[in-house]
């Protein structure tokens, strides 16, 4: 297993190097910092979503769920819209990135915990109902957000819209630093929980029997998930393509690959593996889209396309088995 992790790490280093070096012409002093910032942002987002998705799949006990599938991404735009709605676009743009991040993080974590609690209560163990309810609640949050956006002034509407797509082009240095701290803290927490998460994969009752009652672990894991997703989305915007699609499937692709590369229940291996794959997909994907194919489409659209197909495949395969 460790050999595979090393191979992944090499692959990640390779794609990062290629991302920095390919087509590096013109004023290097200008392009280099720009590319480095973008690389750091991609890396942070990839790791954050990967780790959050692994945690989420462990505490829900199934492998086709992701936080964004359950509407966590939609919450981000909702919080933004609500902020613009209450503060006005002038007041909103007066907020420093640090304050905005803190506000977003708090609101998303609080709402995320509520959302998850509601979903778990509604689903009561039925996985398909949980996913479906989650997707529909995600659609509902999106619809309410859009409704709110129409109620604010059309000019202010522009402010929100420019913020609500995943974007890796303009990244504020302070925001990057704050997010980096949040991602490091979140990842550290996840790592700290790794053995307890292993026990949870046995199911709720067996875990209780081994002295690891799921309830407290659920809360800790959820807090970590909210922290990571909030950090990723406020850094780069939600990863959903903004089209018809119910949600981003990025986390799903990452964990599906991670389970293929390292088929284990041990989070000590699964977590780093997923984190590496998350980085590789975002950086490598951006490299391919931007430098090699020269496509105008954001990477997220392609991820949604492939991810949706992977989701259907996993769902239908599970049934066949």
């Amino acid at each position: 297993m460790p050999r595979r992790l090393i191979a992944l790490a090499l692959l990640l280093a390779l794609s990062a190097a290629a991302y920095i070096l390919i087509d590096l012409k013109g004023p290097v002093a200008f392009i280099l910092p720009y590319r480095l910032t973008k690389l750091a942002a991609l890396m942070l987002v990839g790791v954050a979503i990967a780790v959050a998705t692994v945690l989420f799949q462990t505490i829900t006990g199934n492998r086709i769920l992701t936080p964004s599938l359950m509407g966590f991404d939609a919450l981000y735009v909702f919080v933004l819209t609500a902020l613009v709605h209450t503060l006005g676009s002038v007041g909103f743009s007066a907020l420093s990135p640090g304050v905005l991040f803190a506000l977003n993080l708090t609101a998303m974590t609080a709402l995320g915990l509520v959302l998850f609690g509601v979903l778990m209560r509604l689903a009561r163990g039925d996985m398909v109902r949980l996913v479906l309810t989650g997707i529909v609640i995600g659609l509902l949050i999106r619809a309410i957000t859009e409704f709110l956006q129409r109620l604010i002034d059309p000019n202010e509407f522009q402010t929100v819209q420019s913020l609500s797509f995943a974007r890796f082009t303009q990244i504020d240095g302070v925001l990057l630093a704050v997010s980096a701290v949040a991602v490091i803290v979140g990842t550290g927490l996840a790592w700290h929980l790794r053995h307890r998460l292993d026990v949870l994969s046995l199911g709720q009752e067996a875990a209780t029997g081994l002295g690891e009652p799921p309830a407290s672990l659920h809360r800790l894991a959820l807090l970590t998930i909210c922290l990571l997703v909030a950090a990723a989305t406020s850094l780069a915007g939600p990863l959903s393509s903004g089209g018809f699609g119910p949600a981003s499937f990025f986390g799903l692709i990452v964990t599906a690959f991670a389970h293929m590369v390292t088929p284990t229940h041990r989070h000590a291996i699964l977590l780093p593996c997923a984190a590496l794959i998350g980085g590789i997909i975002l950086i490598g994907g951006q490299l391919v889209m931007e430098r090699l194919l020269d496509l105008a489409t954001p990477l997220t659209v392609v991820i949604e396309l492939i991810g949706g197909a992977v989701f259907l495949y996993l769902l239908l395969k599970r049934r066949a088995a």
Partner: protein
Amino acid sequence: MIRIEGLSHAIGGSPILHDIDLTLPEGGVTALIGPNGAGKSTLLSLIARLQKIQAGRITVGGQEVGRTSDRDLARTLAVMAQSTHVSARLSVADLVSFGRYPWHRGRPGAIDRDHVEQALTRFDLLALRHRFLDEISGGQRQRAFVAMAYAQDTPYLLLDEPLNNLDIAAARDLMGLVRDMADRDGRTVVIVLHDINYATGFADRLVVLKDGRIAAQGQPAQIVTEALLRDVFGTSATVETLQGRPYVVV
């Protein structure tokens, strides 16, 4: 000793257990039996703190359930729940190793590995150790789960209908191993059983539940009678005695 005092429990407004007082002595195999919906599994899961106690008190080996830390309790009692469905893809050895978790909290040492080897050997799982749980038979899987509970090395062992869906060979085999744990290691085993004949054949004591109350308790030979079958189970069947143990003619 497991001591239960004034235990009542309701699920969604409908009462499941009514004011139960029960003392189970140290050692031996105690079987909980009774018709469907009598509250056997609820009683077991309350002892095992799989559900929260609503009213009453349970102590296991002097430790009060609900007040003792989860970790300490996990070193006192092991439980094998009714549903043994595991979403993760685990090998038999992985599963049995989990039994040691309360002792090492994620960092297994030499002692833990010894215990796992011992459990695998004793439950005849050495040949299967690298097989995944979804690749082996139902009987082998149940055996692996009991082996995990064994590896947990606790004085008390709770098993909830471990014979579900097992054929006669696997069921007898498993009950033999359970019997052996009580006899050789002096563990206190409480087991929920569906089939009275397995209970009379392997248990030292029976506790009979009906509608959330204890209808009878004692040695099988004393309490399994045609009257009990009629009053508690609502069926008129003959009881025959064979080698000192009563058996219901089905």
